[in-house]
């Protein structure tokens, strides 16, 4: 691990000034950053600790009926907040199915979407072709170990998936990441926050150097929502595939459906066509299955992950049923 120097930011403005220096990275929960520095994925000269900044933690109801979660809110605290549990069960479940109790006591909701891919070539101790690790070096996973990799939106330059669970729920809820930087700030759609390889195979997210996520905003309540995570081990394991669903129901007829898949692409994958076709359908009818299938027209397997298409389709179907019963 390369040596780095350290500073604690005292305010958001202070953090932005410090983080804007070259070769500088931001420390929040640290559960990813420390491991990156160990593997050598990043070798920053400076680290800015933002955990002592006040006013960036907590959950508050917004006048428009939505909610705002401070970026430094610990995962466990966000998931167990009464407002999140009651109004956004899909988010609460996605968070509690992430990592372990200890990691969720450190990791923050703002840092979580900045998690990087778990592709073994990206995380390798030895140099291996990986465009995210060394731009231009190629993609060893394309014809290598790729059973956990993408079935949507991949290119020959990168076939990795984004591994985090909470962003899948946030994408289904049309959440927005609020950022601040020296020019002001931006509102970034959760579903487009991570970058597809067709746009840039070397990128992880659209966040710029010196730009800070300060909070997450979600619109009105989604009590009929659920998160289904399929994995090889029941707890403390990344998803093979996952599905986040939020429904508006009129009796047993779907008024509106939002469906996002996790661990199938470099960003949470909203099934737009499925959502269009679900409107007006009766729960439990054969039309639901047809609507879900329509969302998989663009799915393309790699050499070792054809199974993920069927798995993801069934996960979406089951998550719709779970959300209806929520």
């Amino acid at each position, binding site marked *: 691990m390369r040596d780095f*120097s350290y500073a604690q930011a005292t305010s958001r403005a202070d953090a932005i000034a410090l983080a804007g220096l070259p070769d500088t990275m931001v420390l929040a929960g640290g559960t990813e950053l420390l491991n990156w520095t160990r593997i050598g994925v990043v070798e920053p000269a400076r680290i800015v600790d933002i*955990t002592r900044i006040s006013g960036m933690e907590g959950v508050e109801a917004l006048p428009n009926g939505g909610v705002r979660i401070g970026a430094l809110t610990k995962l466990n605290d966000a998931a167990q907040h009464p407002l999140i549990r009651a109004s956004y069960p899909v988010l609460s479940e996605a968070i509690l199915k992430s*990592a372990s109790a200890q*990691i969720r006591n450190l990791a923050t909701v703002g840092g979580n979407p900045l998690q990087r891919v778990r592709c073994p070539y990206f995380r390798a101790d030895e140099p291996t072709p990986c465009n995210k690790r060394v731009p231009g070096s190629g993609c060893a996973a394309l014809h290598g170990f790729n059973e956990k990799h993408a079935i949507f939106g991949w290119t020959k330059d990168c076939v990795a998936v984004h591994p985090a669970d909470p962003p899948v729920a946030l994408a289904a809820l049309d959440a927005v990441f609020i950022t601040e930087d020296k020019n002001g700030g931006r509102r970034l759609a959760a579903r487009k926050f991570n970058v597809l390889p067709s746009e840039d195979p070397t990128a992880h997210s659209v966040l710029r150097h010196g730009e800070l996520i300060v909070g997450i905003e979600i619109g009105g309540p989604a009590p009929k929502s659920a998160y289904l995570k399929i994995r090889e081990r029941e707890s403390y394991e990344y998803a093979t595939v996952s599905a986040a669903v939020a429904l508006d129901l009129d009796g047993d007829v779907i008024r509106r459906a939002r469906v996002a898949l996790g661990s199938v692409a470099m960003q949470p994958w909203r099934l737009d066509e499925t959502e269009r076709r679900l409107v007006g359908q009766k729960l439990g009818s054969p039309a639901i299955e047809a609507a879900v299938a329509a969302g998989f027209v663009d799915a393309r397997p790699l050499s070792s992950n054809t199974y993920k298409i069927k798995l993801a389709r069934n996960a979406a179907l089951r998550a719709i049923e779970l959300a209806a019963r929520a």
Partner: protein
Amino acid sequence: MESKMSEYQTAISRRDLMRGSAMVAAGAMVVAPVDTADASEPVSKRFEALATVQVEVNGVDHQLELQPRVTLLDMLRERLQFTGTKKGCNRGECGACTVLLDGRRVNACLVLAVAANKRKVTTIEGLVDGPHLHPVQQAFIDHDAFQCGFCTSGQIMSAVGCIAEGHTGSNAEIREWMSGNICRCSAYPQVAAAVEAAAREKV
């Protein structure tokens, strides 16, 4: 990186043997070049290559000078000799290094020691009350909740956190909320039983 690490570890094991005098050597080892190559001097001067850390461990205050890259785990084990906290995977995957930070269970390998400045840490050594074991320690003995014992201090610290959080409503809930602690001997049924018993005792 590899050679730097082994150099570091060698220095540490030597220090363990000659605890008193080797502290000086360890101090010399951590002097790092200060980054001065930056144009934006005033802000960059805020960054320290060597930081002073004040931390309360098991009710006792400590003050140390540390490189920022030193983890809470390494500080506890190598500088303060709280070797009950175990270093398993050193990447947040096994839970052997679990301690309480301001009362909440965390992986000490995922926390920079400098980030724990002015915070309170409880390690396995801090659980006993005089001659009396903590109820969770006693429950682990009563339920045979370990074989080799390497994961045990992390399991116990995690269990203390789990019980305080109230995630002991059922055996399934305990297993879910204790899943961050891996046991290669697979003593999981006994661990869950010990946590269940200790949680009942608390009530």
